[in-house]
């Protein structure tokens, strides 16, 4: 580019982009700062976008220790991890087998019809109440299955995988067939090992939606010991249910806002920590989805 760099346009563009960055970062930085600050600094509202201890720049992990030591939050954390891992494993199994079979709609008896049935679920569903009654009828209310099974087979993810599998070279498949492989073993030995990119992408989409899931647990779970993090988060942050902290809070005197922000941070930090490394998979997923969509 033989262009002079510092034009008005250049300045406006950069101002705009920095504005976007700051707007996005601000709540996150503020949250982390408050959760790392001293009690007095939080109560006097003197924390901005960097942590303060006793009026000076500094950080303390005291609130995190306090929050993570609470059985309620600890159990919820454990539940969320179990739901995420199990839900992702089940979804990847159902999706990869289903999408592979559906990618061969001409050979699968009823395949075209099934593809239409999958498509329909993208635009029409039974809705909240029939969904609830169905889970109840299946005897899954208040069990882990109500959280990990209902969305294991999502139409959108299935279509992304299906279009990926359709690109698998026919010649390799034929040579596998000559070596005596059938559709199941072809999928297992030939297709899946070369599909790690799409498996990672879909796996991540499912994992994020399980980690963030709120409506399912809200509707299907009643037993507090099975609640995932998101439900507990809502109780503490939005409904200010602080029973869990009452006794201890009086002794250790943490500010309510510190506890709330630390609870949010605990739920968000795993995502912030892994996300930059996985970004390319996510972006790839959007692109496959929008090309085929």
């Amino acid at each position, binding site marked *: 580019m033989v262009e002079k760099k510092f034009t008005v346009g250049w300045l406006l563009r950069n101002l705009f982009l920095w504005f976007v960055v700051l707007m996005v970062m601000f709540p996150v930085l503020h949250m982390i700062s408050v959760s790392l600050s001293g009690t007095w600094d939080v109560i006097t509202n003197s924390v901005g976008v960097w942590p303060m201890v006793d009026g000076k720049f500094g950080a303390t992990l005291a609130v995190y220790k306090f929050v993570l030591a609470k059985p309620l939050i600890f159990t919820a954390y454990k539940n969320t991890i179990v739901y995420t891992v199990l839900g992702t494993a089940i979804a990847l199994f159902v999706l990869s087998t289903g999408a592979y079979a559906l990618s061969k709609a001409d050979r699968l008896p009823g395949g075209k019809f099934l593809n239409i049935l999958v498509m329909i679920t993208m635009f029409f569903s039974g809705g909240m109440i029939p969904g609830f009654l169905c889970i109840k009828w299946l005897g899954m209310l208040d069990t882990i299955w109500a959280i990990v099974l209902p969305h294991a087979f999502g139409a959108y993810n299935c279509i992304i995988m299906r279009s990926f599998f359709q690109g698998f070279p026919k010649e390799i498949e034929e040579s596998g067939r000559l070596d005596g492989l059938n559709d199941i073993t072809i999928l297992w030995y030939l297709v899946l090992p070369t599909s790690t990119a799409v498996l990672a992408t879909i796996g991540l989409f499912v994992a994020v939606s399980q980690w*963030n899931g709120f409506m399912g647990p809200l509707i299907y779970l009643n037993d507090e010991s099975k609640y995932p993090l998101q439900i507990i988060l809502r109780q503490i942050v939005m409904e200010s249910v602080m029973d869990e902290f009452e006794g201890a809070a009086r002794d250790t005197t943490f500010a309510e806002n510190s506890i*709330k922000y630390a609870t949010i941070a605990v739920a968000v930090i795993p995502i912030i920590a892994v996300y930059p490394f996985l970004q390319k998979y996510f972006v790839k997923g959007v692109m496959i989805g929008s090309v085929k969509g």
Partner: protein
Amino acid sequence: MRATKNASAEVLPNSPASAKPEWMKKLADGKYLMMLVTPAVICLALFYYFPMYGLIIAFKDYKPFIGLMQSEWVGFENFVRFFNYKYCWRMIKNTFLLSFWSLLWGFPAPIILALVLNECQNMKFKKFVQTVSYMPHFFSTVIVVGLLTMMLSPTGGIVTKALESLGIEATNILADARYFRTLYIASGIWQELGWGAIVYLAALTNIDPQLYEAAVVDGAGKWRCLWSITLPSIIPTIITMLLLRMGSIFNVGFEKAFLLQSPSTYETSEIISTYVYTQGLQSNSFSYGTAVGLFNSIVSLSLVLISNYVAKSVSETSLW
């Protein structure tokens, strides 16, 4: 399974066939695929199509202890009850307006970001902006609303405090019905701005650079290039995305409205899906809740079909 008996007859599709009828050969050929698709079919049946069948309770007076079959048919009574409810139109209006304003403000934002990012020559900075702006997409609704609640809290919320120092009374933003839509839309843009730009950025990188070179030779300036090359190249993407959004305009997600609302903001914040939840699951009016939900689904489905029809005739792109 019947097909397994024919395992010995399984042959390559194009090899000389045995005397079996055509459909048996197809079954034999597809039996492993049928096994593979079984888990998916079970999921579809149990969690998608069984609830769809359950929609018939919208036309019944469903009593859990009598059962689905024995419950009495009531025709359209549940729907009539909804349309006669005094807040019915308020809810329909709220659902539509929330979506409409989200579309109006939220739709252009990612396009603008993509256009500006595309002009950015500093690759490292561009990558940084992208990484940062995609991030909130992965935050849960509870976290987004939680952050909003905290920052606007009357007791020590940082935004409340900042507004107060400017002399603006801001103690009650979360409980004020006038601000509900603004908060809903602004936080939506905050969360999806960067993520929404991905599709447009991809469309922009597909533009042939030779077009710009030729235009510059012909004496075109930056704005002229933007107007005559960049925008026309991404118009198909814009139209497709717009139609997709139009189709889902009546399909407002439950979670965010539910988490952000409070009885004091119902005037603007009560939408159909949150009403379905309070009626159907909190008051156990299963049939009534289902009827209201079904009304919502039917309206959104019609909108999808209409916008797809328009998409087909306008830009020859369609969802299926």
